[in-house]
């Protein structure tokens, strides 16, 4: 492969590129799903190809192809440079990249159990057993259990001399129970939205999720939820589970700290960020003293971990919020100079045919020193919310509204009843400013989202969020009539 990367880089240089990098990627995926006691989907796929990113005439070009052949490499290199020159017709400034040290290295996420080596019959048998246990109440109408495995072999090489091979294995899964009664339909699921909880691990992650035990609870709670009262509106203290807090953190912190978004490059699609450059290290209060947030792509097994990003920048940790003060962005080689820094290694692309963008790695809320039990006992009038169902946030990541599958009402320090259709709304700094308790390390876990969306064409990508249950004071709950 080294020869092919050299051919591509040389070809791009000959065509006029002043910088080029190539990624050659081979992907493999398997998706298994059972539904209502039957095998629903068994699919597997492979995809390979290469993408060549160039700078010519001071502007970016990118071209890709699934045919990794000498003639095609030359065609793609010429096309990438032609595209860059077309980009230059509109340029205001020359593209400049922060320096990065050239490396020659290999990195492997080292799964304990290769998920593709586990027999498909065994995996389907397991899912069918889980599916049976989801029928835990007479109101259950649809049950579903699914697991997914993804493997990626990736080579990165650049005209600056880097050559990096990475091998990554990712697994995840979820279970669902839909209950219906009296014209109402409710879903209870585990462990997270978006096809479940994912990790940069092998099949051992599926075993750790313990679906067989959780399925009985999920089925039982779905039956209870469909008969539960509607969550009333008003201002309430919220205790948010780690699973849902991961999505809250994702939408209201992870996306607004992407420096390319801050600089306007996503404005044509989903918008910009309220965390503008004037707020960077200027004492801007993102949250309360209890809120410290970091991005760390070195956490072993975490879904957003990596050896090197897609510009060859090594994995690292960056502080984002320090005791409530906003102090850091996720950056790339092109964007980091805007804040006087070099890249902190957050450029990722979804596959060989996409260009890298600034993406979340593992954006995590630092654990506090409470326990969930202590928070509940300390809450006079509140709700304990679990498992995301809906999420919507404005085009600067400021005003948001989230919904969860279930709320448990808390009165005078005890859980009293289950409520359905909870929603809450706030604005980001006010919400994180109301955080007064975060659970400790024992209840802290990195949750893996497999399909964070960004860019055009949409690039779903793996990210992770370390969270523990946390409490937020006097948040607006409910949106009027249902």
């Amino acid at each position, binding site marked *: 492969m080294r020869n092919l990367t050299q051919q591509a880089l040389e070809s791009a240089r000959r065509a006029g590129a002043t910088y080029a990098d190539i990624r050659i990627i081979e992907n493999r995926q398997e998706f298994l799903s059972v539904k209502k006691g039957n095998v629903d989907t068994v699919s597997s796929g492979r995809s*390979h190809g290469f993408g060549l990113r160039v700078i010519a005439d001071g502007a970016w070009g990118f071209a890709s192809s699934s045919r990794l052949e000498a003639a095609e490499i030359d065609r793609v290199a010429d096309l990438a440079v032609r595209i860059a020159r077309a980009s230059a017709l509109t340029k205001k400034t020359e593209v400049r990249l922060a320096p990065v040290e050239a490396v020659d290295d290999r990195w492997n996420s080292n799964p304990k159990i290769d998920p593709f080596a586990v027999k498909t019959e065994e995996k389907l048998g397991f899912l069918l057993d889980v599916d049976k246990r989801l029928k835990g109440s007479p109101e259950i109408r649809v049950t579903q259990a699914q697991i997914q495995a993804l493997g990626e072999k990736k080579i990165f090489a650049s005209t600056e001399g880097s050559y990096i091979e990475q091998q990554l294995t990712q697994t995840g899964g979820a279970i669902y129970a839909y209950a219906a009664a009296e014209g109402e339909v409710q879903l209870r699921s585990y462990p997270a939205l978006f096809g479940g909880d994912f990790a940069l691990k092998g099949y051992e992650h599926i075993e750790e999720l313990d679906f067989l035990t959780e399925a009985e609870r999920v089925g039982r709670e779905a039956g209870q939820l469909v008969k539960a009262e509607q969550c009333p509106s008003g201002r309430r203290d919220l205790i948010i589970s780690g699973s849902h807090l991961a999505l809250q953190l994702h939408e209201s912190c992870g996306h607004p700290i992407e420096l390319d978004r801050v600089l306007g490059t996503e404005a044509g699609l989903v918008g910009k960020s309220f965390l503008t450059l004037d707020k960077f290290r200027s004492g801007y209060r993102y949250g309360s003293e209890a809120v410290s947030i970091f991005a760390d792509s070195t956490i072993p097994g975490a879904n957003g971990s990596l050896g090197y990003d897609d510009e060859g920048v090594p994995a690292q940790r960056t502080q984002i919020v320090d005791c409530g003060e906003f102090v850091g962005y996720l950056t790339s080689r092109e964007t980091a100079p805007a804040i006087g820094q070099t890249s902190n290694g957050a450029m990722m692309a979804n596959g060989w045919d996409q260009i890298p963008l600034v993406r979340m790695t593992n954006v995590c809320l630092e654990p506090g020193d409470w326990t969930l039990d202590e928070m509940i006992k300390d809450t006079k009038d509140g709700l304990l919310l679990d498992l995301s169902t809906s999420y919507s946030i404005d*085009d600067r990541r400021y005003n948001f509204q989230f919904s969860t599958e279930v709320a448990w009402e808390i009165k005078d320090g005890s859980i009293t009843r289950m409520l359905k259709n909870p929603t809450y709304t706030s604005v980001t700094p006010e919400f994180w400013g109301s955080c007064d308790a975060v659970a400790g390390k024992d209840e802290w876990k990195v949750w893996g989202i497999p399909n964070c969306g960004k860019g055009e064409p949409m690039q779903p990508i793996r990210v992770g969020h370390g969270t523990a249950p946390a409490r937020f004071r006097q948040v607006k709950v409910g*949106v009027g009539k249902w």
Partner: protein
Amino acid sequence: MVGRERAIELLERVLRLTEADQVEGTMRTRENYLTRYANNAIHQNIAQSDATLQIKAVLGKKVGIATTNSLEDEDLARAAAQAVATAKLQKDNPQFVSLAQPTPIAEAKTYYEETAGLTPEDRARLVLDICRQADQAGLEAAGAVSSSINELAIANSLGVRAYAPITSSGVTAVIMSPTGSGFAEASSRNAADLNATAVGEEAIARCQANQSPIDFDPSEMEVILSHYAVAELLGYLNYMGFGALPFQEGRSFMAGKLSQKVMDEKLTIWDDGLDPAGAPMPFDFEGVGKQKVVIIDKGVANAVVYDSFTAHREPGKRSTGHSNGRFSASAMNLFIASGTATEQEMIAQTKRGIYVTRFHYIRPIHPARTIITGMTRDGAFLVEDGRITSPVKNLRFTQSIVEAFSHVDLVGKETRLLGEFALSRVPMLKLARFNFTGKTAH
């Protein structure tokens, strides 16, 4: 491009690679070009080229699927063997009856040389047109120009043979100042239809009208929805309710409501993959010819769309040609019947309401009841006593689409071809009430 003859020949070779009871091969090729711009300059500019082949092998009531993006003989054979091996591992799926039977496929123009011939320089010039307008107005432009050439070919062992070359193109523009923004968009199978100048002018005019919006307390009130906003709501209504699978599983608002009035009688909604006024596509992802399906007929729930899998689950049903390739069906060429009102008439007949340019980040909250939330974006305007009085800061809404569509005051005369998941031809709508539930700072 592979072309019809070679595509079908390759698929027929694939069908012979297995001894499964039934086999289906689907080949897709794509050449996608996307030129994104921001801060009045191109910042991302890409070309993608790929070909994928999916093999579906059926053994009795077991179905195995394998996909590869290599069309080499050895890789095709491996994928075919993988599909059969996968099928063998399964238990019978009693709901699976058969792959699709051959149906007549009508002619539809899906391919335009004008789109296929668009060069990187052509796309850059379209961007430049918008950026120059923005520069001259002292505004900031962001958006994208796209063009694509795809091929879809499907063959199965029951005799289905379908092939179409498909072109698509589009221009979007978000125009911004420090105190407001505007938006415009155009899409067509034929890039010659794209008028970047007009898109830029519309977005700039909307931005200039939407300066220094006032703070406005949300409530339930009248609403005028532009074409963009209507297309977005229709897309989500389709996603949550027009397919047979959620209908059969009781998750669709149409479930148990056929022949009943579910929304205002001024609304008729249908799907027609053959109408050249839409973005035509003559067959679905099983190679079944598209049929026109009237989904809502003057407010009455009339029908949902089917693929062969969901059709086999109901006695007497046949596929309507709406397979989305995932054992379920989706409408992909929607139309809302136009009315007689102009935009000015809608404004003139509004006592107190909000004019919405478009929505942002819509998400379902309760799919069975079609309750969604989202924000307004790029221009929300207060309408009082028949005239626009001020732009307002963006508002959050939480609303059942079906309920909103049950109180239609006026339907627009002019329709436009727009959409997020699939292109739909829609008019503007004026609704008697819409539930705004929050606000933001800009």
